[in-house]
């Protein structure tokens, strides 16, 4: 199966998206198609043996839309330019139509709004010069119709293809108004001057102008919803300085190849992913991870495209270029997420599919009903036009995808990559979160936590001896001691003799003294008494720490305890989740005592200890069997089965391929506070979607009956089609504006 993303142009409402899905979905070999109105993209999964991409494109073009490759090189810029051009064109059309609409409205309504005393030249007085008056309106309406010609070409084509859309409603409504007005002009020509009151040109003109205004605002708002992805796209530099044959050559980023040696000066952006080969610097990776602190990089360290080289000149070898860089993958991930549909969108899609034909029926029934009841043709026609114009399938179509676009975009901005609408929607239902311990709650790297001295030895001396003894050790516990000594600027001593005692520790001679460093067993075997430090040793063990005993010349000199330390944000994040009513559990392969000690420190009550990696998924399954909606938070590699089993898998990682593939949500910063942020973002997005759907549905549910004359039935007012058009335009804009409110979302600190 191949999956292609196609850029679709020409869609105006949810009915268009539904139509494309229906037509493409019927093609042999197409297994799945999802069209997103907000991103104007179609994700098509198809069997290339059965159907070709060109056939899929043809089928889309056959029904009046254009399909372009969204992922071809340079497509980003083309897409940006195309959208900018579209916005410019829409604004031009709106301005042209507004320029003609204002005088049209002035002349048409001026004579009706007599109390405002709009002066009208004598030769245009409707009752005295009705033909002049009508001709002026025709001439003012024509440019507006030309500006809005697309409503007619697309709308009537859609009707002919029996898949009416929003354009069909506009086209039908305004055409009815124009045809009736032309009939009135004919009446004037044959001497029925009273027909001058039956001119509806201004209705058609104002409707088109307002819809064009709505479309222009919609296009601008749509552009804002995808700002996050644009920001990401804009991060990559355009060129790179490559060292070839000892010379520095600046080449376009597309020409960089894997293995190229690249030079990056201070202040410049890293052009592609790679490994530092020379130099030392600190790099700002905040644009990828959201982490504001620059990270030190030296030879052998990985660096990522679009991050900023802060202070040193470095050389690095390109390891990933083009679409394989971490940045490109993040962009793809966010784009895929924005193109995906949340389950909640399905209801809107189903409604949208039937919406336009139903509106046509309601308009026709309203028209005939009022006509049969004895109302005039003009009255009935007003009802017909109002119903067609007020109905707004576009608001329905935009309600969900725009919120998802802004929500996922906002997440990406904070280093929270949400892999789709479904993940976004499911996250808000989570009531249990299982955290992996190592590397998730803890840093995943042992560090010295306690230094206990005995026999009168100084603390720093003990650390100096221990670190000197462990010098050159590759054992993680030894590395922790050396790191701690380096941190305290302790000078290491020369080791005169070194002997490793497997499973126990080491024995070294430093400055003539015999140093033993190892576990309790080693001390026991050498007959070294631990009574002096027993109480402290027991306490450390209870706290889940690993005590390393140090003896100098067969006398206990102290303990250095090493443990995997908590991340700074762990306790705060867990407390926040608990305050949100979410049960928090910890899962680990550690023994229960150690696990419980860790859990206590961060405030977790439920501990799933001594669980083998392969059993983690089963533990998640057990929780799900209890009826819980479970999120699993892990590092995305050894926790992959559990991440997959959970309702939502949240990977803590720095954007590695595995993390991205295995989880529904990837936290780029490895900061646990992003877990409550992700859930809160999901809740905010779903709330926003519900608000949008409420407005979109509510608007139609209230607007259509008013337009059909229900209020008039009870002595209330009749809806003027002009106000119907204004309301219709406002509905889409209000839905988009509401979605854009999500941009104000702030993460937990």
């Amino acid at each position: 199966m191949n999956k292609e993303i196609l850029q679709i142009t020409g869609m105006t409402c949810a009915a268009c998206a539904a139509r494309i899905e229906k037509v493409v979905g019927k093609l042999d070999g197409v297994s799945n198609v999802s069209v997103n109105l907000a991103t104007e993209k179609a994700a098509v999964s198809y069997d290339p043996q059965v159907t070709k991409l060109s056939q899929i494109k043809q089928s889309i073009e056959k029904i009046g839309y254009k399909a372009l490759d969204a992922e071809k090189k340079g497509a980003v810029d083309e897409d940006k330019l195309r959208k900018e051009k579209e916005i410019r064109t829409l604004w031009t059309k709106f301005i042209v139509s507004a320029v003609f609409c204002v005088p049209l409205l002035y002349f048409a309504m001026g004579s009706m709004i007599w109390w405002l005393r709009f002066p009208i030249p004598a030769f245009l007085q409707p009752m005295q010069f009705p033909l002049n008056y009508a001709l002026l309106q025709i001439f003012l309406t024509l440019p507006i119709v030309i500006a809005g010609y697309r409503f007619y070409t697309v709308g009537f084509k859609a009707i002919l293809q029996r898949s009416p859309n929003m354009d069909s409603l506009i086209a039908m409504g305004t055409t009815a108004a124009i045809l009736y007005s032309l009939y009135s002009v004919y009446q004037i020509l044959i001497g029925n001057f009273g027909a001058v009151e039956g001119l509806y040109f201004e209705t058609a003109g104002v409707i088109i102008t307002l819809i064009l205004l709505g479309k222009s605002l919609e296009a601008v708002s749509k552009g804002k919803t995808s700002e996050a992805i644009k920001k990401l796209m804009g991060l990559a530099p355009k060129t790179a300085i490559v060292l070839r044959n000892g010379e520095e050559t600046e080449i376009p980023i597309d020409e960089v190849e894997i293995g190229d040696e690249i030079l990056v000066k201070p202040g410049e952006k890293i052009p592609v992913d790679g490994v530092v080969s020379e130099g030392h610097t600190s790099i700002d990776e905040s644009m990828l991870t959201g982490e504001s602190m620059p990270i030190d990089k030296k030879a052998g360290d990985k660096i990522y495209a679009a991050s900023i080289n802060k202070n040193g000149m470095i050389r690095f070898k390109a390891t990933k270029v083009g679409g394989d860089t971490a940045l490109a993958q993040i962009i793809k991930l966010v784009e895929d997420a924005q193109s995906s549909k949340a389950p909640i969108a399905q209801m809107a899609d189903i409604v949208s599919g039937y919406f336009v034909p139903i509106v046509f029926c309601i308009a026709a029934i309203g028209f005939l009903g009022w006509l049969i009841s004895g109302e005039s043709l003009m009255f009935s026609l007003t009802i017909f036009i109002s119903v067609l114009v007020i109905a707004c399938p576009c608001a329905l179509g935009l309600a969900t995808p725009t919120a998802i676009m802004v929500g996922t975009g906002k997440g990406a901005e904070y280093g929270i990559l949400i892999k789709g609408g479904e993940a976004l929607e499911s996250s808000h239902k989570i009531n249990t979160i299982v955290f992996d311990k190592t590397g998730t709650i803890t840093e995943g790297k042992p560090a010295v936590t306690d230094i206990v001295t005995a026999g009168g030895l100084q603390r720093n001396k003990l650390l100096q001896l221990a670190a000197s003894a462990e010098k050159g050790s590759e054992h993680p516990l030894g590395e922790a001691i050396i790191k701690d000594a380096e941190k305290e600027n302790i000078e290491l001593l020369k080791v005169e003799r070194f002997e490793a005692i497997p499973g126990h520790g080491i024995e070294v001679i430093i400055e003539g003294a015999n140093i033993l460093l190892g576990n309790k067993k080693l001390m026991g075997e050498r007959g070294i008494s631990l009574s002096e430090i027993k109480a402290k040793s027991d306490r450390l063990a209870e706290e889940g720490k690993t005590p390393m005993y140090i003896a100098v010349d067969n006398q206990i000199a102290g303990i250095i305890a090493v443990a995997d330390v908590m991340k700074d944000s762990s306790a705060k994040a867990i407390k926040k989740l608990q305050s949100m009513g979410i049960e928090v559990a910890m899962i680990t392969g550690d023994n229960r005592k150690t696990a419980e000690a860790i859990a206590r420190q961060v405030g977790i009550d439920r501990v799933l200890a001594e669980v083998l990696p392969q059993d983690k998924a089963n533990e998640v399954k057990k929780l799900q069997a209890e009826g819980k909606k479970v999120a699993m938070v892990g590092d995305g590699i050894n926790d992959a089965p559990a991440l997959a089993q959970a309702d939502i898998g949240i990977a803590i990682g720095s954007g590695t391929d595995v993390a991205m593939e295995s989880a529904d949500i990837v936290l780029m910063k490895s900061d646990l506070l992003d877990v409550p942020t992700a859930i809160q973002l999901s809740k905010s997005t779903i709330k926003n979607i519900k608000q949008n759907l409420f407005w979109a549905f509510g608007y139609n549910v209230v607007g259509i009956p008013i337009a059909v004359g229900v209020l008039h039935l009870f002595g209330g007012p009749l809806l003027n089609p002009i106000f119907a058009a204004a309301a219709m335009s406002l509905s889409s804009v209000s839905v988009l504006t509401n979605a854009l409110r999500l941009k104000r979302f702030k993460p937990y600190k």
Partner: protein
Amino acid sequence: MKISIIIIMLSLVVTLSACNQTDVVGNASITSFKDIINAMQDKVTQDEMYGGWALTSPGGKERFIWSKDYSVSAPHDVMLEFDAKPFIDAGLDVNRLPAGMLIGDKIMVGTSLGNEKINYTGEATPVSSYEKIVKLKRDHIKYHADLDHFGVDLGDGNMFEWAKNMSTNDKDIVFALNPQMFIDAGADPAKVEGWAFAKVKVMDAGGKPIEVDKLLKPFNLK
């Protein structure tokens, strides 16, 4: 799009500059006025006193007079002339009427259309003189939608109206007066014999639909 709009605007300029062709009300009023003249041939005469034409009502007590040449000295170029007696009987104090309104036993209301010499191709006829009003003084020609009447505005709310289509209208010609000046001069408009005092829907100068009092004397010619 720009070219289309330019073409449309040029068309608008050309069309509106040829306003005479698009003046359907003016043109239709000529046709219907001609019908009225034809229907009342024996009642249409030259009016030597005022240098124009006079259409006398079937009752013989009212006349609509229109000038054939505005340069000829006359009190008005378009006017109504009617018996003063019913008004006097209704309480009118003729001394309180504006000067020049009462001529003998007749009251005259009207307005000047100008001072220019009017030239005709061929002989002047009642219809061609009316055509001159339409062409030269178009703002004095009105269409009254409620009654489907055309009319000549005689100023001060006074009109002479006629039906656009005599076959479908029961008020083929109407002498319409603003009663205010008679009320001001002491007449009770409701008591003016032979005239109907009624409310009529009209548009004011700003296009505002209003109801005004009128003294009406309609005639059905067919």
